[in-house]
């Protein structure tokens, strides 16, 4: 069983983007995604695409590797595009029953395709360039203010990192149990779905028992090493903003401002055009 695949899709290399503070990447990705949803015209997407291409070049992850991440979502993208092409009302170019292709349909389909591609690539850049560990650290730091309203931020981050640590161990264990049950004559490849689900019970039960045992062992070991919650804890790698992080925030600001400017100008132009249309009629 390939246990590495489950540990996120981190791509090991050394680049500026890799070295950025995880908080910058989290905030940046979020802002970028929001920016894609606010403005819906080709000029803004062009700016967004240029921004993303610069980041792609900077992060030194091969493009082919990045596009692999798009594969599972290909079907979803195809669906949205087809639906938009065939079911958007407007100026019909072709019609057959309830199916029709309209100018507007093609336009929205293209825009949506661009938007989805940008969205997914931007999200995958974050996971490709940040280890799950740093990501958890970043989340913990970002959400730290929520501690004031008694959200257990540290505990949640700790749970996340422990879960990540135990995924490969439990995968291995599942594999062992599967083999043990197969050796005793259990069949996991029955064609009938109900039989297949039933045959999973003797795998899941021992897996849970072992997971609980491990959890209690781990809790003991953590306590023995003086773990007493997040209070007064220091870090081997504390998150500290460096010059490059501040600079990235500045770039992000410039991106948002220019995007907003283009978006507003574009909206005004189309408004003027619409008024001109009405006036000329």
């Amino acid at each position, binding site marked *: 069983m390939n*246990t590495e695949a489950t540990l996120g899709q981190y791509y090991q290399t050394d680049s500026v983007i890799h070295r950025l503070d995880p908080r910058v990447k989290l905030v940046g990705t979020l802002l970028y995604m929001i920016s894609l949803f606010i403005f819906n015209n080709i000029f803004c997407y062009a700016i967004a695409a240029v921004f993303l291409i610069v980041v792609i070049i900077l992060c030194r992850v091969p493009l082919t590797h990045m596009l692999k991440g798009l594969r599972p979502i290909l079907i979803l993208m195809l669906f949205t595009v087809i639906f938009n092409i065939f079911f958007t009302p407007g100026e019909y170019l072709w019609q057959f029953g309830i199916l029709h292709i309209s100018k507007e349909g093609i336009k929205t389909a293209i825009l949506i395709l661009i938007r989805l591609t940008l969205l997914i690539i931007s999200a995958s850049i974050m996971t490709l360039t940040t*280890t*799950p*560990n740093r990501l958890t650290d970043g989340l913990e730091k970002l959400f730290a203010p929520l501690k004031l309203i008694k959200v257990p931020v540290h505990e949640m981050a700790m749970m996340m*990192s*422990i879960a*990540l*640590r135990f995924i*490969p*161990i439990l995968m291995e264990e599942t594999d062992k149990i599967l083999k043990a049950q197969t050796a005793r004559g259990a069949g996991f490849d029955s064609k009938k779905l109900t039989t297949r689900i039933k045959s999973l019970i003797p795998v899941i039960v021992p897996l849970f028992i072992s997971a609980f045992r*491990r959890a209690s*062992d*781990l809790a*003991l*070991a*953590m*306590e*023995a*090493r*003086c*773990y*007493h919650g997040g209070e*007064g*804890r*220091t*870090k*081997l*790698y*504390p998150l500290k903003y460096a010059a490059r992080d501040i600079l990235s925030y500045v770039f992000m600001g410039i991106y948002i401002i220019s995007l907003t400017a283009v978006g507003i100008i574009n909206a005004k132009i189309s408004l003027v055009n619409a008024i001109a249309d009405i006036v000329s009629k």
Partner: protein
Amino acid sequence: MKIIKSKDVTFEYIKRDENGEVEGINKALDNINLDVKEGEFISILGANGSGKSTFAKHINSILMPTEGTLWVDGMDTSDEDKILDIRMTAGMVFQNPDNQIIGQVIEEDVAFGPENMGVETAQIRERVDEALKTVGMLDYKKNSPNKLSGGQKQRVSIAGVLAMHPKCIVLDEPTAMLDPAGRKEVIRALRALNDVEKITIILITHYMEETIYSDRIFVMNKGKIAMEGTPREIFTRVEELEEFRLEIPQITRLAYELRKEGMRIPECVLTIKELCDALSR
């Protein structure tokens, strides 16, 4: 200076039936009196259910005596306020290497203890490298623990405790899940710690071979200390040891049988070399 002093320590597990009524009381520890001097290498031998692990958990203040008192470096282990200090003084290594490694990267795991203690970042770095160097795992510091052998994982666990700078390390059957090569690795690391760093070692095990190098051995049986003495004193009492369901090392056993048959061999033989010397004389 006594690092560990145990006076009439008794611990009872209370068995309850389904209605929560006391069904029976199981004395896991029965009047244990035991002193350990600073810098000693102590082994506690015992078969399954002899109470040796229960005793180990008392030293780390995970369990507290029902009766009697246990002092670690002068601190009473039932004193709630001193728990963290006690755990910093007496570190603990457990049996299953997988269930006590918390970090996803080795250096982060070793840093877990110092982080909990609130050590400064620069100092954590120093302690981690030093601890990993002591157990010979410095080259692996950036690796994932999932790719290590059992012996290596256990050495990382020892480093994790070492980085807390304890005066004493308690190891609860650290080799039970390892292959012979891993077992040797761990024991060698422990001897080096005791010799070079002068750290008090309390090794809890049921493998007699591992106790040969200790300063003193305590043999436990049914919650009581049944025998106490240097390895040579203990290993001559082959018949008694067998009564306690302990397995005598092959070489000692062979020498014992030969001596019984009338050969002129010294009373207690611990290593192959000793027996060879004795036979060739």
